[in-house]
Each structure stands twice: as C-alpha cells, then as structure tokens.
C-alpha cells in the first residue's frame, strides 16, 4: 500500500501555505517531516489525513484518488503535540476507544489494548484516569490509542515536544522500535535534526511550504541537496561562508584570497556559499582555511564545548571536544577543513561535497 501526493498545494489569504508537494510514502516505512515552525509540517499532515482539502493536486491511496474522501472515511490515526485523552475515561478505555467505535469484539479489544500497553509500558496504569498520569504517560496513552487502531496511516505531529528532556530522550529511543512492528505508513514531524537521525527511515526536509529534499535520513544528512535542506538538518545552526571562485583561487570576504582546494577544487568559477557544521571547524590550532576572530561566547555541554567565534562577517559555532572555558573577547582563529564542507552554488543547490570530491 502507498500514499501518494501529486503536486499538492494549499493556498489561503496569505498565499501558498503548501506549494507543489509530490511524495510517495510506502507501507511499513517511517517518514520524518523535518522543518522549522511554520514550514508546513502540520498543514501537510492534515492534507495527508484528509482533514483539509488541497486547493490543487491529488492524494492517491494505492492508486485511488481519495482527495475528496473525508478523514472519517479513511484509516488514519494522529498523535498531536498536546496530549489529547478523554479525561473521564480510564487509561484502558482511552486506548480502547477507537476499537469500541469500530465495534470490535471484547476479546479482540482486550488483546490489542494489553499488547499496546505492554509496548508503551502502561500495564500498571490501565485503571487510572489520565489526570493521575505524568505528561510522558499521558502521551504514551495517546500513542497507544493510535497504535491499537492499526490504521493505514499514522501521523505523529511533534509528539515529544511537550515532554521533559529526559522523557523525550527515552521515548525517542523506544518509538522506532515500537513502530517497527506496525505495518502502517508512519509520518513523524519534528523540528529537531537529532530526532530525525534517531528515528532513521526517510526524511523530507521542508522550507516555507516546499519540499527541499526527500531521501534516506542519513543520506540527506550527509549529502543535503541544497542550502535549505542543510540548514534544516543542522543543530547547532549551519555555519556559512560566501566566496567567489576564480580559477585556482577563492576570493574570501575582506579581500583575502586562498587556493581552491577540497570540495571546491573541481568546480566551475562563480559565487558559492560554503556550509559547514560545527564539527568541521576547529578553534585554535589546526590546518585548512583559517579565519582570525574573537570568542563571542563558550557553551560547555558535558564533554564538549561549543565555541561561538565572531570572524567579522559572521559568527560561527565550532565544536571542541573536552571542556574549554574561552573568555568572550579572547582572540581565536577558526580553521575549516575544506575537504569536509558543502559548497552550494548561486541558486543554493549542492555543487560540491566530500562524497562528490571523493568520486571525482
């Protein structure tokens, strides 16, 4: 079974909210919608579910046009960022509710609820009311309800966003395992790159209502097709450097020049934006392309330090292993390994990457 979006668009008074989105999602697959707030994740999910009707394009289920089929006639389950449970029903009845609506026999309901409760570690809590549960348990109840329904399409809209950090970490770990068993089409919206990497599957990056890339999650991370996809898939934010290639030279901000090496070596002349993640820039000692700067701020997080360095035309975030307390204002130079960065051309499309440089 598959869900296919064909040139889906949604316009409202503000203009295009979703712009010409085409995707094919297969049964038994997990697709992550990755993008910042207001990039169209929730809107796209509502269109997939049939909660909203697109103003252009078609939605196909197994090749059948379901664009005009309302949500109640489709097999869809949805989990929202805000936990939604029936406050007057027990946890058991909350999980069982879609099965009761469907009129399943009692024994079948019992079996499915117990199975879902076990997966989501809610066994001891089935007789409680949602108000007696922690936030994490309430959201697990909502997820269990989506799971027992065995819907063809399961949509999870930032399901962990309202949970405590540690709970999020644990559920994030468990969710892929829980859903690996179901044979549904799973769609998971998040703003967080780390979450996408942990969930695996395939990732669709979204930017202002448009799909900027769709592919295997780790491949998208390693080879973002354009500047928007790279930006959405970087945390800390992607560092950028605008430059101009001219023959064997790179013209850098401030009138400096440097040899055109690494991913830039075989590219045609013209303007480029170099995008690099924090781990591909070192502070202090190091080779590669160097930029003098001053420390803006240092953030120590466990065994790593994130050093924000102001290089005059930009402030970059660099990762240093270990604990370093560099003082603001302190001189610090940033070294970029040009063999490990991405080069985007004037239109923002990926022109050079480590993988491309290797195969060249």
């Amino acid at each position, binding site marked *: 079974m598959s869900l296919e979006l064909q040139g889906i668009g949604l316009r409202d008074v503000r203009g295009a909210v979703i712009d010409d989105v085409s995707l094919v999602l297969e049964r038994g697959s997990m697709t992550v919608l990755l993008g*910042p*707030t207001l990039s169209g994740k929730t809107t796209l999910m509502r269109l997939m579910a049939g909660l909203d009707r697109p103003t252009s394009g078609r939605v196909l289920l197994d090749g059948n046009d379901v664009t005009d089929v309302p949500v109640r006639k489709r097999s869809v389950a949805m989990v929202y960022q805000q936990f939604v449970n029936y406050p007057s029903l027990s946890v058991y009845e909350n999980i069982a509710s879609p099965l009761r609506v469907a009129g399943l026999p009692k024994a079948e309901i019992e079996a499915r609820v117990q199975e879902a409760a076990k997966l989501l570690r809610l066994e001891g809590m089935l007789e409680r009311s949602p108000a007696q549960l*922690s*936030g994490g348990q309430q959201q697990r109840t909502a997820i269990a309800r989506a799971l027992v329904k065995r819907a063809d399409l399961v949509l999870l809209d930032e399901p962990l966003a309202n949970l*405590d*950090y*540690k*709970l999020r*970490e644990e559920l994030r*770990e468990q969710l892929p395992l829980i859903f690996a068993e179901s044979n549904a089409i799973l769609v998971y919206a998040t*703003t*967080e*790159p*780390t979450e996408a*990497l*942990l969930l695996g599957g395939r990732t669709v990056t979204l930017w202002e209502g448009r799909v900027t890339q769709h592919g295997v999650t*780790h491949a998208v*991370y390693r080879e973002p097709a354009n500047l928007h996809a790279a*930006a959405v898939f*970087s*945390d*800390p*934010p992607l560092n950028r450097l605008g430059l101009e290639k001219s023959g064997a030279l790179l013209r850098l901000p401030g009138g400096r020049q440097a040899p055109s090496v690494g991913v830039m070596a075989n590219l045609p002349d013209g303007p480029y934006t170099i995008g690099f*993640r924090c*781990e591909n820039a070192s502070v202090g000692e190091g080779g590669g392309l160097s930029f003098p700067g001053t420390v*803006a*701020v240092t*953030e*120590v*997080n*466990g*065994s790593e330090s*994130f050093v*924000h360095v102001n290089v005059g035309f930009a402030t970059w*975030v660099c*990762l240093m292993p270990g*604990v370093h307390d560099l003082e*603001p204002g302190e001189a610090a130079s940033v070294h970029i390994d040009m063999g490990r960065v991405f080069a985007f051309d004037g239109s923002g499309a990926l022109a050079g990457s480590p993988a491309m440089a290797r195969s060249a």
Partner: protein
Amino acid sequence: MARITLDGVGHAYGTARGGAPSYALKPMHHVWEQGRAYALLGPSGCGKTTLLNIISGLVIPSEGRLLFDDRDVTRLPTEQRNIAQVFQFPVIYDTMTVAQNLAFPLRNRKLDPGAIRQRVAEVADMLNLTADLPRRARGLTADAKQKISLGRGLVRSDVAAVLFDEPLTVIDPSLKWELRSKLKAVHRALDLLMIYVTHDQVEALTFADEVVVMKDGAVLQIASPAALFERPEHTFVGYFIGSPGMNLVPAEISGSLAHVAGQTIQLAARFGALQGSTVLGFRPDYTQLARGGGLSVQIRRIEDLGRRRLARVSVGPHEIFATVPEGLSFEDDRAGLLIDPAHLFVYADDRIVDGRQERDVAV
C-alpha cells in the same frame, strides 16, 4: 543587586494528620551570589518551580527564611522584592512598539527619559532588536516576542535578581542557539544575579555558572556544569545530565575489583565494605567499544547520530551505551568494552563513594 540566602527554606503543602510533612521542597541552605548565573534543573515535580516561586514571592515557604542581602523578604509581596521575571510565554503589550515595551519597566520606576533611551538602546543592541525598536509588537513572531520579554527582564540594572521560568520553551531549535548565547553574553555584560528554571540539561549546562539538580523536592547536587558531568555525586545526577545519561550497572564491589554479571572489572581504587546496593557509574562518552579486550559485551544496536556513533550493548541483563570510535566496524555482535578508569565511579545507595587510591593498581 543582591546576594540571595536560602536559610533552611522549605515548603510543605499541608501536613498529613499526625504524620511527617509532605514536602514540595525539602529544607535547604544555600547562598546565591551577586553577578552569577544559576540554573534549577530537574524533571516535572522536582520542586524547582516551587523554589522559584518562593524567591519571587508567589509562595511563602512553610519553613525557613529568605534573605536578599541582609533583608528578610520571606513574607514580602512580589512587588516589594525588586526582581524581574521572564516567563515561558511572551508577556508584552501588543499595541506598544518594541521600544515602548522595553522602556516600560523603567518608566514605571520614573527614570529620566535620557537614561531610559540609553538603556533601551543598550539592551536592544545586545538582543539584536535595534531594527525592530519602532515596530509594533503585534504581528511579530513568537520568537521575536519572547526576545522582547527577555529584554524587559534585563532592562533594569537595579534589580536584586532576574528570574527565568523555562524561557526558551516556545523557541525553535536553531534560534535557541542564538538566544542562549545572547543570554549568556548579556549576563557577562550586565553583572546581574540570574536564576533560570529548566528541565532541559543543555540550557542549564550552557547557561549557568552553577546548576542545582533537584528531584522529589530535594537538592541532589549543586555544582559547576563540568563537575556535574565529570563527577556526579548521585546516580540521578549521572542519569539526568548527559545524553544519553551515565551507565549505571549493579555490581558487587570487593576491594579493588567490581563483579558484573560474572565478569570482573579492575577499579582504580580500593573500597572497604559498602552498605546498601552498589552500582558502577560510567558515562558513554568515556566508554569505548572495541573489537576485543575489557568487558565482553553483546552489541544490540549501533546508532549513527551524525557527529558520533553510539552503541547499545548488553552484559548479562544490563544494558550499556558506549561510543563507537570513527571507522571501527564489527563482524558479529561480540565486542569488548573499554571503560576509562578515571571516569568510573562507585555508588552505594545512589551516593558516590570514594575509594582509597592505590599506586600499584594496574589498569
């Protein structure tokens, strides 16, 4: 500007009849110094918000005294405490301009217009709000509005403390980086006592000079971010700080040996007889997977997190997270686990135990 002293401050929401009081915050002693940044970190229900509310005056503690410098403010209402607060969601006036919003706390204090303009410009500059100053707040994004809230919290230089209650909740991940670093830079520049409540360890570790880790109404450890990571004094601190948290594996300790699921680990120190349940604690960051050597483990799963690879392995019934060195691959599911002895700790009934250092212990 002030120093805040918590002198046996605690809070019980009603006392069970004839029984022990049920504490939302167990009595604690601590001094918060002028000019420093503190984070109150813990899961929901740990008491961090109760503590913040006691400082702001929303809650009068059932025990103890709260001092701002030498003044007892335990029972004073919020408006007499001279504090600034920033909440989870933006609290601003939509019909005012950004500049008027920032100036509001100063106008209320009847500062002269020149001083107000100067201070508003200074704070706006720090938060990159200068271009927005003449704009109406209505119509700005949630992020921009929260930036204004932060600015309003920081605009008064005469406050005893600035309190932040999970201020980055509504902010997108990429902007969190910007705001967190701004906040830290502002703190450096303004010499204010800041207290920041969060459940997010990244925010706590990156922002604060000292972090107060709390659970079930009790303070478990107060220390610098580095110390919390490098040497957690309580198993919960080990678990809660770090992502994933510290590996905590039940072990039998005899002398300088630890026995885990039928295997033996050499410790860097010797331990006497220990009371209670004993656990080894070691962080995934200081635990490496290898082709062989060390503890013999079974690989369950290897996750590629972009910057690093993390393995979930098992030893008997215990699950352990370890770092997978770059480029290393495995033919089957057997591997060795190498734990850095300098970062391996022994806990008895959840509290860290110091062993006696031995010179000739081979590691």
